[in-house]
């Protein structure tokens, strides 16, 4: 877990494109308390993205990449959909899986990494759309949870198949009419956070990505719990502004409107007992570390 491992060979430094030089010079690999506040002052682990202008998925991506506790030793697994357009621009190891297969790939990957690197912390994080997670990949999603596979599953819930033009998904709201689902959805939105809890996930959160500090907190918690205890699941509302007929600037408001207490993305959290204990321990350690750093800074300035 250190930035020292990410170095360019000196003899060839000058021919490296500047984005790589910047990654080495000012990205936050190895920084213990990295988080969303680094955005704007350090090199981000995402270059440009090719999503629609203003797509909330792009905000979510930036916050998540800024918050991963261990990016240099993380492998992300993606699936087909709008998210997959971003991975080619991400400076974290990633694997593109066949649509829906992401949790199966991640299971094998996580196990292989623990055999190959027994002494090193390696995090695996799945990031896929709702179609991949809840419909076509539901089998793989659930089986990984049943088996207590130690990785995090993040679902970018935009409540439809965005990349293919707006088909109905299991996470779409009842009654919603989309471009390629003109009849309107006849069934309720699948209650995947509840299903995740019942399937063995130790940390489950359902929320929007309107608040970067909240995204940071849940990402860190989810990754730490998955590392030590078992599967975790985050369902993040990243509305497809294109399909719901919003302008580029309206994504944030859409998320704020949908996270009100009576709405479907009101913050919802489930933490198992062992996960609660772990998070409490981590919080205590963090507090200690910060107090020590403060003391040190005080001594230095005295």
């Amino acid at each position, binding site marked *: 877990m250190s930035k020292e491992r990410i170095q360019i*060979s000196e*003899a*060839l430094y000058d*021919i*490296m494109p500047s984005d790589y030089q910047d990654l080495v010079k000012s990205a936050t690999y190895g920084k213990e308390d990295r988080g969303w506040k680094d955005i704007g002052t350090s090199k981000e682990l995402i270059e440009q993205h*090719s999503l629609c202008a203003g797509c909330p998925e792009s905000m979510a991506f930036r916050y998540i990449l800024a918050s991963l506790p261990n990016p240099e030793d993380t492998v992300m697994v993606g699936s087909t959909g709008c998210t997959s357009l971003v991975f080619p*621009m991400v400076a974290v190891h990633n694997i593109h899986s066949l649509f829906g297969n992401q949790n199966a790939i991640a299971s094998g990957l996580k196990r292989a990494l623990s055999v190959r690197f027994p002494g090193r912390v390696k995090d695996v994080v799945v990031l896929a759309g709702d179609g991949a997670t809840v419909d076509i990949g539901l089998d793989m999603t659930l089986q990984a949870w049943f088996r207590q596979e130690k990785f995090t599953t993040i679902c970018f819930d935009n409540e439809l198949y965005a990349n293919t033009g707006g088909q109905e998904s299991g996470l779409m709201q009842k009654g919603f009419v989309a471009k390629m689902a003109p009849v309107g959805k006849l069934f309720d939105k699948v209650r995947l956070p509840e299903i995740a809890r019942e399937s063995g996930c130790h940390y489950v959160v359902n929320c929007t990505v309107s608040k970067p500090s909240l995204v940071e907190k849940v990402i860190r918690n989810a990754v730490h719990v998955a590392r030590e205890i078992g599967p975790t699941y985050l369902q993040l509302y990243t509305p497809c502004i294109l399909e719901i007929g919003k302008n580029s600037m309206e994504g944030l408001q859409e998320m704020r409107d949908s996270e009100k207490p009576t709405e479907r993305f009101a913050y919802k959290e489930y933490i198992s007992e062992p996960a609660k204990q772990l998070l409490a321990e981590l919080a205590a350690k963090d507090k200690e570390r910060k107090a020590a750093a403060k003391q040190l800074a005080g001594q230095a300035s005295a």
Partner: protein
Amino acid sequence: MSDYRVLPGPEHFLPPAAASMGIRLPNPGEAHINGVITSEDKAYEEAARQFLMAKVPTIFPGPLVLWAWNEKAAKKATAVRHLFNTLKECVQSGQKPMLIPMPDYRPKYPKINPEVEINPNHPNLTIWHNKIDCCMFIGVHCHQANLSLKIIRGGTSCYTIAMCAQAGHEDAMLSFRDASVEKLMKLADTIKRLKGTVQPRLTSAKNGVSS
């Protein structure tokens, strides 16, 4: 032995994997030229000749040498630089040696600048942009090198050389195996020795790459 020969393209949109055409890899101490097993010494001469003949001889260092994973990688990077500097010293005016990195294997849509970096998914773009007629891969993981070499053979007339750290690449027109600092230095020495003895193809119509 197979009659198939691994030659500069453009072969066609999807050239066959050379292995599927019966091309086999060299044993230690050997190399291959056009898919025919040969002595390593002969391969040094031929690689040096191809470099000295080319209008735009280019080295493509991959992630295994661009990044200082360990001391060995950093040393190899220094040897790659030495090889490039030697090449620059040994070519004639009108020839333009290049050193273009393959920092990782991301296609980096839509941001990649094919003039200054190459990726295995679209190596032909870099070759077309820079009019490269001879290139050498070094420090590229096997699977990505094979993919690139096949795309190059399919869509361009560029002569490909692989300085492979493992068992060699059958999809390159010329391949060394067990690449090391010593082998890079030896190739540089051969280029130096052959300096002035090889006529560059500066005016020939054949030197262009298809675009």
